[in-house]
């Protein structure tokens, strides 16, 4: 296992990027094998319909950097993920996932939502020299770099199951937890979701759905 486990969440303002980052960072407080959590997120004018990213970095091992005696080495981890450094990418929107290809490498698992959100200026083909890439082309590119890509129209799934596209982020979290069971304890994550949403929230069902979506052998 890597000494730092890096997660990147990307999407469009309003999709739940910030909330998902918040949940995944808080998870770092739940289990003893994560020594520190750092992360950061884009803020400011990009919130409405703009590109949003959130980073989560778990410090796993004891001795990563050696620093002076009496100094807590866990304090000083850069909140930014290095190039090729993501272990997990949760791409809530295809174009935004491709925009962050810098972080994707042979160690990356991508959970990829195929539902496009066209930027306003592209709705009518304005700004024609830069077109929204074909989903097939995006997937092909991602496959070239990533270890594994789990792609699906999670918004459609959320709509069919829960009559609202908004729960796609929790479904994707469920898939991610199943992918990295050495990092994520399912029950601890459920405990955390309880703290966030209370009991009886649809978010639990959405997480459960994601967790059981793909069988692992």
């Amino acid at each position, binding site marked *: 296992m890597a000494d730092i486990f890096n997660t990147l969440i990307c999407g469009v303002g309003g999709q739940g990027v910030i909330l998902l980052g918040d949940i995944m960072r808080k998870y770092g407080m739940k289990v003893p094998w994560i020594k520190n959590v750092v992360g950061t997120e884009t803020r400011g004018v990009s919130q409405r319909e703009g590109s949003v990213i959130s980073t989560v970095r778990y410090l796993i091992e004891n001795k990563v950097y050696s620093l002076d005696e009496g100094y807590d080495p866990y304090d000083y981890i*850069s909140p930014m993920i290095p190039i090729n450094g993501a272990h997990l990418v949760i791409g809530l929107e295809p174009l935004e996932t491709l925009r962050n290809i810098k972080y994707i490498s042979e160690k990356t698992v991508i959970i990829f939502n*195929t539902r496009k959100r066209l930027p306003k200026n592209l709705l009518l083909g304005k700004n024609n020299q830069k077109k929204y890439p074909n989903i097939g082309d995006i997937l092909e590119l991602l496959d070239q770099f990533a270890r594994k890509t789990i792609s699906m129209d999670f918004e459609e799934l959320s709509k069919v199951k829960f009559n609202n596209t908004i729960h796609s982020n929790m479904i994707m979290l469920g898939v991610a937890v199943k992918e990295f069971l050495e990092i994520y304890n399912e029950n601890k994550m459920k405990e955390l979701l309880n703290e966030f949403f209370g009991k009886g929230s649809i978010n639990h069902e959405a997480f459960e759905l994601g967790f059981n979506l793909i069988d692992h052998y």
Partner: protein
Amino acid sequence: MMHDKLFSENQENKKFLISGNEAFARGIYEAGVRYAANYPGTPVSEIGDLLNDLGKKSNTFIFDYSINEKVALESCIGVSWAGGRSVVMFKHVGLNIASDPLHTFPYSGVRGGMLIICGGDPGIHSSTNAQDNRYYSLHTKIPIIVPSSVQECKDYVKYGLFISEKHELPIYLHVTNKLSHGHSIVRFDKKENSIRTIKFEKDPKKYINTLKKAMNNQLILYERLDALKNDDEISNLMNKEHITCEQEDNIKELQEKIGIITSGICFSHAVEACHRLKLKIPILKLGLIYPMNMKLIMDFILKNDLKKVLIIEELEPFIENNLKVEVHDKLKDFKSIEIIGKKYFPRVGELNSDIVMDVLAKILDKKNDVNIIELHEKRQIVEEIVSNLPVREPTFCSGCPYRPVFYALKKSTKVLTKKFSWEFIFGGDISCSTLAESYPFELIDYVISMSAGIGIANGLSRILDPNKQKMIAFIGDSTFFHTGLQPIINAIKDNIDLTIIVFYNFWTAMTGHQVHVGTPVEYIAESLGNNAIFSNQVDLINVINSFNPKNLVVTDSYNINKLKSIFTKELQKSGVKIIIIKSECALVKARRLKERKERKGYEVFYRILDHCVKCNECIEAFGCPAINIKKESSHSEENEDEKNQELIYYIDQNKCIPKVCPGACKMTCKNNAIKKTIINPQLKGKMSE
């Protein structure tokens, strides 16, 4: 994080996952600060929002949402002189507004500790420039401390106040957005209680800065600064030396005698870069970067027998240049030392561990390291892919009251341009209205600083040919009270030919919906509770009325036809025309109405009917995010055959807020294809209006 834990006494040694801004708020609480003031601005707005809550419930702490940064700073000076600890916070450009007292009050010094927390934005994510505020210290003589982690964001508040009281100097805490918006685990400490008695003790020599008294105080300021510079206790507290990768087995001693001096977030980038390249390099992390303790730096260089010192810092070569000057003075000892920094690092943009790693590889000739080869390969590929991707421009929220205004303004000015061959020039402000610069409006011609839309128009309007070019300038309500009064009065006093559009949306919307002095009492009571109301709210319209403007129109924003006729009429007049758009920020209003527990009434929603002729007006010209297009019959993205697909225009009910926006889009549709629909829950049937 829950406020009850953030501001609670019994959390000693407990660990919490919090943001940099929360850490500052906790630090202010732990340090027993008596007074804090703020004008909101990214990246430090959240500190003020948190402290506002603390101020409401605490008997010993006062928080002020100040009218602007200058007043915020000055009020903190007052509290400090009375013996109380005070902290002021704002964004980097806010310090420009406060810079007048900033240059003089250090002459008098402080009594209670005083800290200025200032948030920089080197990547220009939410600002108009990337100015490196560390340079302020060179002419104000205010010492700078820079935290490197979220833990230090909390601790440095206390250290800063300690230094401030020990040396009677105000302290400037420099932070950048990656840290104030960063999250990490922080150990809490116990709350200190202030023991000073609060009293202003008259001392004309100290507090009056005129002529000889000022010059005398200037001398005292230099003495204080020298004392701090040579204070080893402070130096040991604020600066730390590290050796990277000491425990790794496969590291050989380096040939080059190189060391790193850095501060702030760059320290974590440096540590990570050294780790990735498996370099054993001594790093000196400066927490106090001005004044620099030269004994410490000489020790660092001599002890490690360094030949090269690499300075890692964002933006300007502040540490590098200061160090070069200091070392030059001690040339005898330092003849063979090379100090490098901006020779390798960019002066534009944020740094990260990739950039630092690349520079280290260049200097140490490690170009064949596998990390470096990968880095360069990937950069090239990424450049090719990302440069071809369409950009997502931010836009007004759905239901935003600004959108109909810019829509109507664009129509009206087009008509007038055709009729009179006038070209309209649009002066932008720092406000949500800045978003009109992008598609589909493109109605902003310049953006410089708070209220500069009108300030610059004061010059343009006087010199432009009024038969050819006409000025329109925008301003938001929070900016109006911040620095907007002066340019408006200046325009009125000479009745220059200028149209001023004031957006009165009741909140400081762009930075997170903070309350301001113009927010109506009833709205604050509903959103934030009675405690948040100032003793006196000031009505913006009454203020403008008191200027006796010849042409003043007040209107709400959603009736596009009415707006068009107002603009067409007003823009043909000469002299100053003021148009006030009075409509509440849609986001706050929606939240407010949601919290108001009303009995279930009529449900209203808007939809696009089948006789829509797809003229694109509502999308291309109006551009509300709630109005969308979908392609019918395309389930498989792979077989995109655009010719065979039918475009369907629809209103996304998840985004539309019909309780706030009374269907402004309806007026953009020439075919009446956008319909308001009302559902009466009692009748369980639909009625169309």
